[in-house]
């Protein structure tokens, strides 16, 4: 039998991981809800932003907040670039083609990163304290990203509910044609949404670098998981994605402690598959 303290620790780690996953999933979900396209390469954009913060902080020795700012700006720029260069030319084509175009971007980013920076794992070293409470270690490298992630999500929520642009974005997600008739330009909204989605990828990258080393295939670690969280929560459904992030993170952490890391993911994915059959519209969807 496993010592319960390990399970408690795993559960706590699950909450901390869930906070980061929620940020990733909300960024992707925002884009999906508004533009109706799944960016397969979303976590690969995060990977590029992680390199940005690695180079600014670890290699050039700039302060962390400057590196974070660079990562955020780069994320927003990448989001706009992806939309203008890849998505907008194929907005009208088949859903498969849209999915595959961003899949091509995935191959491109992974290989170009390999070409530029090799496959070495790179880590930013922070000397931050760690607290012990009743035998459970809580390192600041996990607590700080969690806190920032929660704050960022609150800011996103306020942006979407309190500003004119945010309201327009939500309106497009609800009804594209009607919003255009109300005089809001979908093109501008798409661009802003992509920029905000990219910005969140940049932020996620800046937070992930606290705990994970970056390498060109980083996207494979979190990519599939992020799509599944979005679908599990209901594509375009923000509170659903938030809850789903924590559910998946808990499954991965606890099953990971009981069996093995891979089995943690296997169980999480199987839960996802089964939930697709039981609640296809998402965890928090109302029964129709």
């Amino acid at each position, binding site marked *: 039998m496993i010592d319960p303290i390990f399970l408690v620790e795993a559960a706590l780690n699950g909450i901390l991981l869930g906070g980061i996953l929620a940020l990733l999933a909300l960024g992707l979900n925002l884009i999906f809800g508004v533009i109706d396209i799944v960016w397969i390469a979303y976590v690969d954009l995060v990977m590029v932003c992680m390199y940005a913060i690695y180079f600014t902080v670890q290699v050039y020795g700039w302060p962390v907040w400057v590196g974070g700012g660079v990562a955020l700006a780069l994320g927003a720029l990448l989001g706009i670039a992806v939309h203008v260069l890849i998505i907008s030319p194929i907005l009208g084509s088949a*859903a498969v083609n849209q*999915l595959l*175009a961003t899949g*091509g971007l995935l*191959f491109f980013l992974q290989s170009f990163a*390999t*070409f530029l920076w090799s496959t070495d794992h790179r880590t930013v070293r922070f000397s931050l304290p760690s607290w012990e409470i009743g035998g459970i270690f809580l390192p600041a490298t996990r607590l700080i990203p969690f806190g920032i992630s929660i704050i960022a999500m609150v800011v996103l929520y306020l942006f979407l509910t309190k500003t004119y642009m945010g309201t327009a974005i939500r309106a497009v997600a609800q009804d594209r044609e009607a919003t255009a008739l109300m005089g809001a330009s979908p093109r501008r909204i798409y661009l802003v949404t992509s920029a905000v989605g990219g910005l969140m990828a940049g932020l996620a990258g800046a937070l992930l670098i606290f705990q994970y080393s970056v390498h060109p295939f980083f996207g494979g670690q979190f990519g599939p998981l992020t799509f599944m969280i979005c*679908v599990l929560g209901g594509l375009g459904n923000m509170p659903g994605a938030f809850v789903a992030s924590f559910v998946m993170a808990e499954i991965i952490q606890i099953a990971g402690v009981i069996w*093995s890391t*891979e089995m943690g993911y296997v169980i999480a994915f199987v839960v996802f598959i089964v939930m697709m059959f039981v609640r296809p519209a998402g965890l928090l969807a109302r029964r129709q």
Partner: protein
Amino acid sequence: MTLARGAGAVLLALLLLEPWLPLGDVRQYLLHVLIQIFVWAFIGGAWSLMGRFGLVSLGHGAFLGLGAYTAALLWNFWGLTPWLGGLVAVLLAVLLGGLVAYPCSRFQVVGHYFGLVTLAVGEVVRLLIIAERDWTGGSLGLSLKPAQGDSLLAMQFADKTVFYYASLLLWLAGLLVWRRVDRSMARSAMEAIGEDETAAASVGIHVTRFKVGITALSAALTAVGGVAYTQYISYVNPDTLAGIGVSLRIVFAVVLGGMYSLLGPTVGTALTIALSEYLRIVLGLKFIGMAETIYGLLLILFIIFLPAGIYGSLASLVTRVRRGTMVAGSAGPA
């Protein structure tokens, strides 16, 4: 279409005679590339059986990996011939296909959702192979136990020529199956389902039966492809045979060629393999990753500018030109 037929016949004759052509040192390499093209075109064709009806699977790596590992493990541990092992592999793939397709059909999981469910299935197979590392070799992969010399029973041959003809046959068999499906009643039924499930059901089409059937067929063929590829390479690896990477590669090749035509998957596969081999030779080891970078970039460009696939776009262009020059009604279907 006589010109196209003639060109096709010449090409087929060249392919049949390839092992005897005076190509010098290049011959072995060319054989290797062609074997890969045939096997992956066969797998791509198997994928397109589902893809063309709107069942876009992003997890065919599941069937590929399941097939390859089943036959390889049965051979390595119990010495079971891959002929029988392949049969077991096909049965398991059909079972998995049914296990995915049946609930997906009953609960109306379609479109993006179907893609993501299959993607999850592919990842589950890959992770299970890695997790069971004690007997599957984990991420390091597994080499097939060598038989004594050439052996038909073990499906192992030192000479590439044998594999070449075997893969050529496999590819032709795949085209035959594709054509049979294309000309069957099932095609009309599946197309109706792809257009509008409720309407199809209302005219008496058994939606679930057709969906499960086509998925089982596609899964079975994909598993066969997996076994064939394993026998040729005599090595299996979870990252090259299961999971999201290989699944996306299959889809890419097919979409690039065009999934609605008989030769589309073959054209797409041939192009992607030729392209990556060419880039690998030209760029070599100096620029690691550059070949794949260009590959990814070209994929994006192709999808933006040739959405119907290369073969599909060419075919419709030819039809349009003919329609324009010939008297209406005399132009045959492309």
